[in-house]
């Protein structure tokens, strides 16, 4: 069983493990900051999208609509290339930041739709009850509607985060050294000369991250659902 022997070699070889961990670090770095950027952008866009129609909101609403349409309608790899080779094609510009911005903007478009649906899913009676007590629209949103909306959107946001983590693997296409790229380099002829071993180990790393994330989301959801009957 060469496969298991080679896995043993890989896991005990400090050079190979160092390469994998370096790649893993970069994958996590991009994922975490892109997710934060995506959540921020997504929330902003969702709030603009559900705001009442008025003259002042016309342009922001239009911009948000175009943003969501374009980002959801074009491939992620293409968006990443445009960021890396056109918009941030500056010598010495950190590739990590390029990737974070590209993935954050992409994620924001999907997150905004989830959050918008979540806010709309909260019974209008909740808003009416808040307003009828004399609370402002903002207070009603912040204290009553959004906390309930968050509970509803967590599963969808969780899905989006999982997709985001795995999608960051395409940064190798602009020459970045992430977990996937590390596995590829280790498997190349001048190293282990076997792709299946490092690729399997990298797959396990991804699986572990996603599993931990899923677990965390379940816990969070359970805590937020304390007030529900279901």
């Amino acid at each position, binding site marked *: 069983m060469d496969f298991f022997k080679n896995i043993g070699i890989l896991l005990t070889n400090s050079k190979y493990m160092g390469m994998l961990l370096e790649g893993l670090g970069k994958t996590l770095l991009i994922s975490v900051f892109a997710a934060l950027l995506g959540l921020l952008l997504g929330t902003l866009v969702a709030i603009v999208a559900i705001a009442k129609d008025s003259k002042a909101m016309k342009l922001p609403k239009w911009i948000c609509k175009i943003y969501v349409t374009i980002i959801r309608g074009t491939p992620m790899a293409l968006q990443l290339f445009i960021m890396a080779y056109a918009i941030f094609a500056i010598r010495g510009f950190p590739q990590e930041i390029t990737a974070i911005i590209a993935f954050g903007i992409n994620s924001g478009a999907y997150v905004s739709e989830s959050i918008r649906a979540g806010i709309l899913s909260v019974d209008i009676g909740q808003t*009416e009850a808040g307003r*009828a007590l*004399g*609370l402002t629209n903002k207070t009603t949103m912040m*204290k009553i509607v959004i906390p*309930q909306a968050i509970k509803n959107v967590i599963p969808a946001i969780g899905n989006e985060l999982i997709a985001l983590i795995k999608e960051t693997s395409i940064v190798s296409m602009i020459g970045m050294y992430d977990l996937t790229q590390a596995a590829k380099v280790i498997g190349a002829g001048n190293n282990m000369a076997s792709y299946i071993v490092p690729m399997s180990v990298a797959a396990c790393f991804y699986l572990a991250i996603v599993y931990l994330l899923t677990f965390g989301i379940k816990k969070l959801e359970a805590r937020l659902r304390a*007030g529900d009957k279901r």
Partner: protein
Amino acid sequence: MISVKNITKKFGDLTVLRGVDCEIASGEKVAIIGPSGSGKSTLLRCMNLLETPTSGEVWLDDKLISDVDPYLHEEIVAVSATCARSVQAGVASEQAVDEIRKKRSLGKWEGSAYKNAIKEYAAEHGQNINLARRKMGMVFQHFNLFNNKTVIENLTLAPIDLKLKTKEEAEARAMELLNRIGLADKRDEYPSKLSGGQKQRVAIIRALAMDPDVLLFDEPTSALDPEMVGEVLDLMKELANEGMTMVIVTHEMGFAREVADRVLFMDEGHIKEEGSPEELFKNPKDERLKEFLSKVL
């Protein structure tokens, strides 16, 4: 206390209220009855502006809480550009004003004098709706307790957030009210753990926790199981006996008869008949009311 002046309400092509006037005096209990779709809930919701009237005005204690309706004010119509054009064409100014009000012929643009007249009127008589709503409690058909808050938080959220009471004062008042309805042991439960009747009674005391001057009830027992209707009506009767001003949209004719000082019968967006419960239920004059009563009594 509340005056509703010539209110209309349209939802797209559907006209729900077709010019309704009514006055609610302090301490009065008014029941609004009528077939479904007659506009009774919409009228109630216009009183605290949960629905914005298409035209007409709502006043609370001599303060205008809705937008200014120019057609209700001769002096505003008189400075409009349309009026100025008529006067220029040789029409007497009073006649021009009358004609505009009758035909409702004001356009989108009526000049800056007109705009300023509306602004000045609103500044002089108007009141912020959020301030007005603190004085008008509302009880909904579907309770609308805040699902993400416990019972005690439901009762104290608004008084604390609006800085009407400190946390201690608000909680003391909330406990007093909870004791009154016998639900003090539910203070830390979430609304989903309460029965329908309990929810509605908590919703009523949530409105009371704001120390309102008037309570608006929108079919408060329609969503309840029959055996829970009694406990809610009993609480409402208690409040009525204490002298609370109440406007109640209801299908409970027995309750309207017993508690109301005045009953309004609505049909097709109009108040078709109003009067004391005795006259209205015993000697209905309007044909639609007779038909309606024969079905529900």
